[in-house]
């Protein structure tokens, strides 16, 4: 096979060769195997990171759903609009229509939502459910691989206990999508995973199909305290910065080696070289960092102080990647203009502040100031209790903004817990707003979701009722809570 092959046949050979070298192991790449019967060469699966980018694929399947018409509600769409006396139609797991006084399709189950409120499913972009499960015992403490400042190689999903009762409490609070992150002990904490908040036997049953991974990074006090207390680097903020840069240099070098290898391999396959190149050694830590540099993994950066955010941005410029979101972001209001220019989202709380020095300048007006400055603003939880009350936490921020003369309406503020987190974690094309064609992730509230008295009545994920406060058959219970002495679960409440 020398020199006379057409472009088409050359491409075919390359596919065959790739298959022979690294046979796919999972569904994601099986399409390229094409029933190749000639691949008899000895294979070494898993050595090339490009061979299988999804070794733990989602096995999520939506629960059965019917056509549903939520009729008469006040609807916050997540796109900044409010629809009074609105109707939302869910069909085939998708939102098919939304508007005021829409006709109800034949065969639809009609839910009378007059006097109630409908929002997109609430998204918590910062959760440790499953990795720090309840009960808070040693055995369930799997969120921080605090053994090295760079553990980009670990994946939060491998710590997730699907039976964490916290998932169901969060569901009762309207959470339909979660980003589960490793903790903040390390400069690079590992991969974050996006989950659909549905009960699953395995974490893969919960994985949001097609969602990108996140990389948890952490600024400031936590890494320097953890490793400083172990008398190793980093023990200072300057040590932190060195740690990030050192890792990004290694990651760029890793990418270069693999790119060169793939180029040489293609040359060899094309007959342009006599000798097959030797593959670089695969490194799981570098795979994750390279994923960020390639743009396929989104940086989720725990960072409280504004000045540190600016330094992290400088590092992102130096190595050519984008920070998707700063988490916690207590001082983000101090650098709101920079964050807007960089198109970086900020996740923060309504009122948490002051628990350590880097959060001492956290103010309730933060979210409103950011929103006013045009920054993609997110309210997150970082907490198994708070995640149950995210719209109310947003209400605290909203009220503080109004008190400071910043006018933001509820239809805009609901984006802080729906569309904006969806954007920041990379799933806005699928969920986060009530728009035709999107996943039917929807919450029916008893009252204005910004009210302390608001309770979820129904929670839909992909059009299926995954929680119904009035229907015990639609109230999941974790294995752990099964058989306990008291009705710990609302489903069993009198």
């Amino acid at each position: 096979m020398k020199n006379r092959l057409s472009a088409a046949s050359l491409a075919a050979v390359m596919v065959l060769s790739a298959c022979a070298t690294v046979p796919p192991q999972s569904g994601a790449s099986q399409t390229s195997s094409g029933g190749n019967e000639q691949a008899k060469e000895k294979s070494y699966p898993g050595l090339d990171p490009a061979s299988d980018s999804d070794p733990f694929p989602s096995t999520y399947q939506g629960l059965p759903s019917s056509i549903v018409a939520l009729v008469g509600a006040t609807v916050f769409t997540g796109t900044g609009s409010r629809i009074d006396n609105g109707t939302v139609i869910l069909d085939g797991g998708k939102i098919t229509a939304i508007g005021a006084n829409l006709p109800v399709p034949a065969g639809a189950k009609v839910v009378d939502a007059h006097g109630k409120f409908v929002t997109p499913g609430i998204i918590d972009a910062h959760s440790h459910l499953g990795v720090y499960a309840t009960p808070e015992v040693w055995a369930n403490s799997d969120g921080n691989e605090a053994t090295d400042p760079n553990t980009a190689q670990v994946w939060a999903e491998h710590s997730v206990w699907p039976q964490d009762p916290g998932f169901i409490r969060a569901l009762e609070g309207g959470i339909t999508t979660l980003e589960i992150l490793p903790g903040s002990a390390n400069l690079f904490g590992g991969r974050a995973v996006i989950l659909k908040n549905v009960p699953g036997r395995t974490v893969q049953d919960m994985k949001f199909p097609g969602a990108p991974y996140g990389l948890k990074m952490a600024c400031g006090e936590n890494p320097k305290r953890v490793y400083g207390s172990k008398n190793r680097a980093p023990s200072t903020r300057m040590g932190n910065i060195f740690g990030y840069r050192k890792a990004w240099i290694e990651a760029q070098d890793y990418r270069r080696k693999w790119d060169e290898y793939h180029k040489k391999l293609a040359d060899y396959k094309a007959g342009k070289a006599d000798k097959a190149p030797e593959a670089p050694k695969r490194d799981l830590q570098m795979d994750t960092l390279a994923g960020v540099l390639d743009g396929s993994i989104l940086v989720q950066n725990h960072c409280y102080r504004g000045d540190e955010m600016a330094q992290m941005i400088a590092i992102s410029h130096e190595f050519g990647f984008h920070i998707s979101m700063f988490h916690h972001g207590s001082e983000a209001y101090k650098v709101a203009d920079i964050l807007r220019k960089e198109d970086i989202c900020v996740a923060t709380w309504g009122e948490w502040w002051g628990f350590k020095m880097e959060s001492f300048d956290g103010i309730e007006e933060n979210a409103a100031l950011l929103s006013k400055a045009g920054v993609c603003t997110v309210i997150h939880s970082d907490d198994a209790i708070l995640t149950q009350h995210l719209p109310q936490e947003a209400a605290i921020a909203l009220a503080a903004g109004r008190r400071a003369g910043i006018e933001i309406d509820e239809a805009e503020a609901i984006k802080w817990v729906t569309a904006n987190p969806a954007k920041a974690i990379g799933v806005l094309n699928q969920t986060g707003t009530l728009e035709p064609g999107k996943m039917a992730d929807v919450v029916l509230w008893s009252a204005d979701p910004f009210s302390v008295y608001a309770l979820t009545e129904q929670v839909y994920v992909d059009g299926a009722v995954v929680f119904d406060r009035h229907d015990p058959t639609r109230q999941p219970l974790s294995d752990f809570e099964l058989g306990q002495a008291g009705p710990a679960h609302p489903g069993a409440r009198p």
Partner: protein
Amino acid sequence: MSRARRFRSDSQNPGALGRAKRGPRGCGVGYPALKYSLLAFAAAISLMGTAQAETIAITHAKIMTLGSAGLIADGSVIVKDGRIAAVGANVSVPAGARIIDAQGHLVTPGVVASNTALGAGEVEGEATSDDFAGATDHLSAAFDVSLGVNPASMLIPVARMGGVTRAVIVPELPGRGDKKGDKLFAGQAAVIDLSGSANSITRRYAALSADASSGAAGRIGGSHASVLQRLEADLDEAASYGANKGGYEHGTHRPYRQSKEDLEALQPILQGKEPLLIEVHRAADIRRVIELGKRLKLKIILDSVEEGWQVAGDIAASGYPVLVDPQTDLPNEFESLNSRMENAGLLSAAGVVVVVKPPYSGDYARQVRYNAGYAVAHGLPWEAGIAAITRNPAQVFGFAEKTGRIEPGLDADLVVWSGDPLEMLTVPLHVLIKGEEQPMISRAQELARRYGALDPAQPPAYRH
């Protein structure tokens, strides 16, 4: 005692810690934008110095008195010499009184943050800034947190902005719950007002804080049983001491584990004069603490009681009041597996006096009204929700003669609200503490003003 929840996930030591056009609920209330004028702030500050003698009339108010007058749909509160002089629908406004027209808004007693570190610590993560944990081998029951109170704490104005006017500071055992130690008593709780004035201590020795949680068990031996046995032994020792003080002075007493100061501090507890505030979670443990309390004729306040709803009848029969955080609905520990948000409502329905508390850390104190709101969302009657953060804590911690209701003779701790006080979208419009109107500004608003409108010609450091 339970620490702030966030330290769990935001920590790196697993195991170690861890103006609306439309007001809420259609009440038609608008938000006044905060005036960031320095002159206004200065005026408010100077007002504080002279307000003691100021006579204030809050008129056209919906008044929730929490007292015998109940709810007054449209009335006035007259404030004179720092106290409530009159309240009612038909009281006359004294000549020369400054009038605060409430325009129909709700007025309640000031909110009480119960079981908090507020005023005895600044930054939770920086031990050198904290004064809420001080028990030592020789100063446990006797540790008096009131002596560490800093009225100038930067956290106080922040809490005040949320309508909090008094705080019950409860000391915590040192060591973040993960250090071995030998003590069950964290020390003496104190009640403060949030005026920031030098004389802001309302009451010392409001309660003695004790810990009967699994944290305490871990600290002293490993079992809930050892906690109860040790608690009783410590009290027995104090009883022996009390009956034979002369013997102590002459050295003719049995060996005591506790210091003289601690043994003295336990005397009012044994006499039933001062309440023993006990952190306890599990239903079975609650029953045992009640049994111990009745047997020794103690005055007990049950703190946390996540599983209290399971033994609500026992608690009601004991007459012991409870402190609850209504948001705790997860099986966080094996001693709180049956936590649920209906706890406060079910206990109240059973006849238990319920105090709603905020999470412990001082920066959380302003959350207490939302916590009451969550309890109401899950079954506690709204009026009981207000009482749980006003009248009830004042009664339980022994300062009902000072505040907690709007009645003549009590200190004028008053809040005028933009709407329902338990709602997040509601803000306090006016806060009065002991008759002085408080400036509605804290360091947070100054930061917001400094960074709210960035101007290259005037860097933030020059904006104050």
